[in-house]
C-alpha cells in the first residue's frame, strides 16, 4: 500500500511539471512564433496520417478520372479550347492595358505591382478543429509557400497560410472567427475590415458610419492595406445592412465570393518584389 502511495506522489510532481510546460508552450505559441519550427516538424511527421485519411477521396477522384468516357473527354476538350481562345483574345487587350497602366504608374512614381505569381495546390480532405475554419493543402515550403501568403480560388479570396511544413500547409479561411481582412467597396471606395464569424456564408463589417455610401449588392475587394493580401482581389458581395440607430453605426453582412466550403483546388499567390518590367 505504501508503494502505491509513493507512486501517486511521483505522479503528482510529474503532472505539475508537465502542466507548467504545457502552459509555457501555449503562452509562447500564442504570443511569439518561436515554436513554428517545432510545429512544422511535428506536422511533417504526421503527414502520412493526413495522406492516409484523404486517400479514399484522392483514390475516388483517380478512379473517376480513369473511367471518364471518350466522348466526355472530347466534349470537355472542345469546350476548353473554345474557352481558351476567348480568354486569349481578352488577354491580348489585357496585356496592352497592363503595359499602359504600368507605364502610367511609373510616370506617377507609384510602386504598385500588377501581376502576381501563383502556385496551384489541392486540398487534403481532412478535418481540423471544428470550431475554427482551417483547411490543409498539399503544397509546403519545398514548393515555395511561405507563412502569410494569400489563397484564392476561381471566384475570390479564400484565406491565408498560417502554418507550413515541407510538404503541406494550413490555411486559415476568411470566415474564421480569428480572421479579419482589409477590404474596399468598389463602387464608393469606402474602406473597412471584414471579420469572419465562424460561418462560411457571411463575413461581418462592423462600425461603419451610418453616412457611408453602402448598398446591398455592392462588391468588396481587398484593399491591400496591411500588406498581407494583394490589392484588388474580389472578396464578397454585400448581402444585408442592419441599421442600428442606437449607437450610430451600421453593421454589414457580406457573402464571400470564394466557395469556402467546397473548392477542391486553390491558388496560392506569391507576391514577389516590385518588378517594373511586368
Amino acid at each position, binding site marked *: 500500500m505504501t508503494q*502505491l502511495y509513493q507512486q*501517486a506522489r511521483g*505522479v*503528482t510532481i*510529474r*503532472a505539475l511539471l*508537465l*502542466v507548467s*510546460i*504545457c*502552459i*509555457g*508552450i*501555449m503562452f509562447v*505559441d*500564442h504570443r511569439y512564433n518561436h*515554436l513554428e519550427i*517545432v*510545429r512544422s516538424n*511535428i*506536422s511533417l*511527421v*504526421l503527414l502520412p*496520417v*493526413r495522406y*492516409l*485519411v*484523404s486517400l479514399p*477521396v484522392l483514390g475516388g477522384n483517380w478512379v473517376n478520372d480513369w473511367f471518364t468516357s471518350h466522348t466526355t473527354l472530347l466534349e470537355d476538350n472542345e469546350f476548353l479550347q473554345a474557352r481558351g481562345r476567348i480568354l486569349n483574345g481578352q488577354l491580348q487587350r489585357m496585356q496592352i492595358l497592363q503595359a499602359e497602366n504600368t507605364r502610367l504608374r511609373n510616370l506617377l512614381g507609384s510602386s504598385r505591382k500588377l501581376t502576381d505569381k501563383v502556385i496551384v495546390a489541392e486540398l487534403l*480532405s*481532412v*478535418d*481540423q*478543429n*471544428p*470550431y*475554427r475554419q*482551417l483547411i490543409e493543402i498539399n503544397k509546403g515550403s519545398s514548393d515555395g509557400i511561405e507563412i502569410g501568403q494569400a489563397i484564392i480560388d476561381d471566384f475570390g479570396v479564400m484565406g491565408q497560410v*498560417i*502554418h507550413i511544413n515541407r510538404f503541406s500547409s*494550413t490555411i486559415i479561411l476568411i470566415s474564421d*472567427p*480569428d480572421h479579419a481582412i482589409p477590404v474596399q467597396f468598389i463602387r464608393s471606395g469606402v474602406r473597412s475590415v471584414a471579420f469572419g464569424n*465562424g460561418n462560411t456564408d457571411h463575413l461581418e463589417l462592423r462600425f461603419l458610419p451610418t453616412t457611408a455610401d453602402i448598398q446591398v449588392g455592392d462588391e468588396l475587394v481587398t484593399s491591400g492595406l496591411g500588406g498581407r493580401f494583394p490589392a484588388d482581389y474580389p472578396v464578397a458581395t454585400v448581402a444585408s445592412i442592419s441599421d442600428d440607430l442606437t449607437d450610430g453605426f451600421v453593421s454589414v453582412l457580406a457573402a464571400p465570393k470564394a466557395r469556402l*466550403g467546397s473548392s477542391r483546388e486553390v491558388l496560392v499567390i506569391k507576391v514577389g518584389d516590385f518588378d517594373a518590367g511586368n
Partner: protein
Amino acid sequence: MRKLNYLVIYLSFIVGMMLLILPLPGWAKIYRPDWIALILIYWSMALPKYVGLFTAFIIGLLVDSLLGALLGQHALALVLITYINLNTYLRIRALSWIQQSLYVFSLLVISRFIIFWMDGIMGLTIPIQAIFSGPLIGMLVWPCAFFILRDIRRKAMIN
C-alpha cells in the same frame, strides 16, 4: 518479441488520429468523440506503467499540430485527465461498464472544458452545447472501444 507487442499501442494511437481528422459533414462535427482521449484512458488504465503522463503530453502535442490548435492545448487536457486516471484506475477497473462509461464521460467533459477554456482566453467563441455533445457520444462508444482495445491487448499478449 516483447518490444514488438508494444507497437500495437502506437498503432492504436495512429488509428485514433485518423479517426480524429476523418472528414465528417458539417452538422456531425460537434458529435465527434475524442478518440485519442478514449484510447489514452484505456491504455493508462490497463498499462499505467507504460502509458502515463509523458505519453499523454507527447500525444497531446501531436494532436495540437494535427488540428491546428494552440501547441500545448490538447497536451494540457490529456495530461490532466491521465493524472486523474492514474490516481483512480485501481477503483475504476473494478466498476461495471455502465459506471465506467459515466466516469469516462466526466473525464471527457473535463478535457473538453480545458480546451474550450483556452479557446476562450484566446477570444474564440465556442458553441456551448459542444462541451457535452462530443463526450456524450464518447461515453456511448466507450464500451466498444474498451472491448476492442482489450482484445487487441490480449492478442498482443501484453500483461
